[in-house]
Structure formats: structure tokens, C-alpha cells
């Protein structure tokens, strides 16, 4: 739930990057952190294992400056993608205003994508929110990998609700900001 502090004239929104392990959620945040001007970003905080896999979450606060007199802040989080961290994902999702689902375009990852998306639906519903109405944007990541599944195939299995979706190669930044812009606008539209 977005927070509007009238006294401090501040708006805070929480966006969570969700998806299966190694799909590129942290890469999205790393690229955003590398490109956004210094005055608009805080430190990128990562709680990761020794092998750089996300253990709890990554966190990147973005400050959009004053909009119509309100200081507007987006807080970006990633969840740990590995199956064993299901409960941790529930914790990070708490109070989210919008979700970017980062899918891995590789053929052998399709089933993992589907399972992760189903889990997301369950977790959103458990927070007493209607999954169909919840602000979600899809990102088909790793489009540069040879043999990546056609977009039409990914649409068929993952985008049955007709969300906005973007092709991306997060490691080089392709599609990262298109995705961020789409989810930000969607979240703002629901304030």
C-alpha cells in the first residue's frame, strides 16, 4: 500500500521484482542503479550469499524529486528466486504496490517461470488482493540467449491476463527502463 505523508509532503511506493532463480531480477536493479543520476538514487543494498545469490532481498530507493509539491519515492525490491526461499518471497512481497515478473526466456526455464507465476498469484491472493487487478508488468529477459523461446510462446503460457510485457536483456540494460517506466506508471495510476 502506497504511503502518502501529507505533513512531509511525501509519497512512497513499493515495487517488487519477482521471478524464478537466475532470471535476472538483481541484474535489473544493478542496471537501474548504474544509470539513474546520483541525486535520484540511494545505495543498492543486497543481502546475498557468498556466491552472490540473493538470500533475502535487494533494495534500491529511487527519489523522483518533487512532483506537484510531493517528494516522490519508489522503493525497488527483488525477491530471492530459488524454490527454497518461498516464505522469504512472501515476506518481501508484503505491502507491495506493484510487481515486475522477470521471466527467463530460455526453453528449459519455461516450467520454472510458470511455477513461479502461479506462486505469485497465490501469494498476492493471500494478501487479500485480487490478482487480476494487481499492477503487474511482465519482462521476458535473456532475449540474447541462443534458442530463446519465441515471444508468442511465452505469451501463451505466461501472459494469459494480457499484462504489458517487454523483451529485455537486463545485463546490458535492454528493456530495463521500459519495464520500470511501465510499472511505475501503473502503480501511480492506482494510487
Amino acid at each position: 500500500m502506497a504511503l502518502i505523508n501529507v505533513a512531509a509532503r511525501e509519497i512512497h511506493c513499493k515495487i517488487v521484482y519477482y521471478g524464478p532463480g537466475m532470471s535476472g531480477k538483481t541484474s535489473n536493479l544493478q542496471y537501474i542503479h548504474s544509470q539513474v543520476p546520483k541525486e535520484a538514487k540511494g545505495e543498492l543494498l543486497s543481502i546475498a550469499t557468498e556466491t552472490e545469490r540473493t538470500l533475502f532481498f535487494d533494495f534500491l530507493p529511487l527519489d523522483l524529486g518533487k512532483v506537484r509539491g510531493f517528494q516522490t519515492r519508489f522503493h525497488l525490491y527483488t525477491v530471492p528466486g530459488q524454490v527454497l526461499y518461498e516464505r522469504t518471497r512472501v515476506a518481501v512481497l508484503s505491502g507491495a504496490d506493484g510487481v515486475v515478473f522477470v521471466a527467463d526466456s530460455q526453453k528449459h526455464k519455461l516450467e520454472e517461470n510458470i511455477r513461479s507465476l502461479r506462486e505469485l498469484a497465490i501469494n498476492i491472493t493471500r494478501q487479500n488482493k485480487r490478482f487480476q487487478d494487481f499492477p503487474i508488468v511482465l519482462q521476458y529477459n535473456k532475449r540474447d540467449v541462443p534458442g530463446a523461446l519465441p515471444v508468442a510462446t511465452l505469451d501463451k503460457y505466461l501472459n494469459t491476463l494480457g499484462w504489458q510485457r517487454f523483451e529485455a536483456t537486463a545485463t546490458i540494460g535492454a528493456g530495463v527502463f521500459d519495464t520500470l517506466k511501465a510499472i511505475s506508471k501503473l502503480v501511480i495510476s492506482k494510487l
Partner: protein
Amino acid sequence: MDPQLTSQIVPAEEIKVIEECLVRLAEDTGGNYVLLLDKSGQVITAQGDAARQDITALGALIAGTFASSREVAKLLREKDFRQLFTQGVRENIFISLIEDQWILCIIFNKGTHIGLVKVLTKKATDDLSVVLERVREHQKARDDVLGSSFRTSMEDTIDLLFRD
């Protein structure tokens, strides 16, 4: 629209009441820093002896810890853990849940006894529950607070800032 999806607007007069409550808690316990967070990790307001640079990250981590403990509670078939206490060498943190929406957090050092913190935090939690109830009951329409052209201005800002 699902009420869970709308934003929570905290009016200026309620922020004042909250701030007074946090100041009182800090003074009465001798605590160094008191924060009120939303369960999503956003800092509603903070009171303390020094301006902290890391307050945003602190909010995210504390709320994450609390959300994580809630999942532990479910696994143990507990309803939830209402309080968390973390003991450090120099400073300690005591965290208390307000209803299921806000998190009150007090940071204090060895000069303050945990028992006193627990008792006074309970009192502050009760007071803040009343404020939370009022905030929930008196949600204004978004346009009354932000203005009708806010969304367009926001979209322009997003386009300007979020680019390679």
C-alpha cells in the same frame, strides 16, 4: 476498487500526534532513535538524537525482518510475533507491531533498561493504534490531496528520469 490497493494517506494533523508520541517515548525511555514504519518498510516518521543518513535502508531491513518473523510464526502455528528484540554490543533494537499495518521501532543503548522500553512501548503502541484507526476511517480522496493533474506530471517525471 479493492481497498487493499489504495494508498494510505496520513494527514498532517495525525503526523503531529504521531511525532509527539515518538518524542515522548524517546524522552521517557532515554532511547536514541524512534521510528514508525509502514509494514512495507516505508518510514512514516522518525525522531531521534541525530540525523541518520541510512534511515531508508533501516526501514526496509526492519520491515523485512518483521515480515520474515511473521512467516516463522506461521510455520510454528503462532498467530504472529508482536515484538522483536535485537541485542547489540552498543545499541539494542526493540520492535513492536501496531495492528497489522505499522511497526514501531526504538533504538536504545545500555543506559536504558529493556523492561522500561517494553512497558512504555506498549503504551505508545496503544496510543498509535488509535491514530491508525482514525487514519483508516478518514481516508480522503486522492485528488483532494494530490490534485487532479498529479498523474500527468508524474508520468512526465518518470519519462524524464527513467532512461538509459
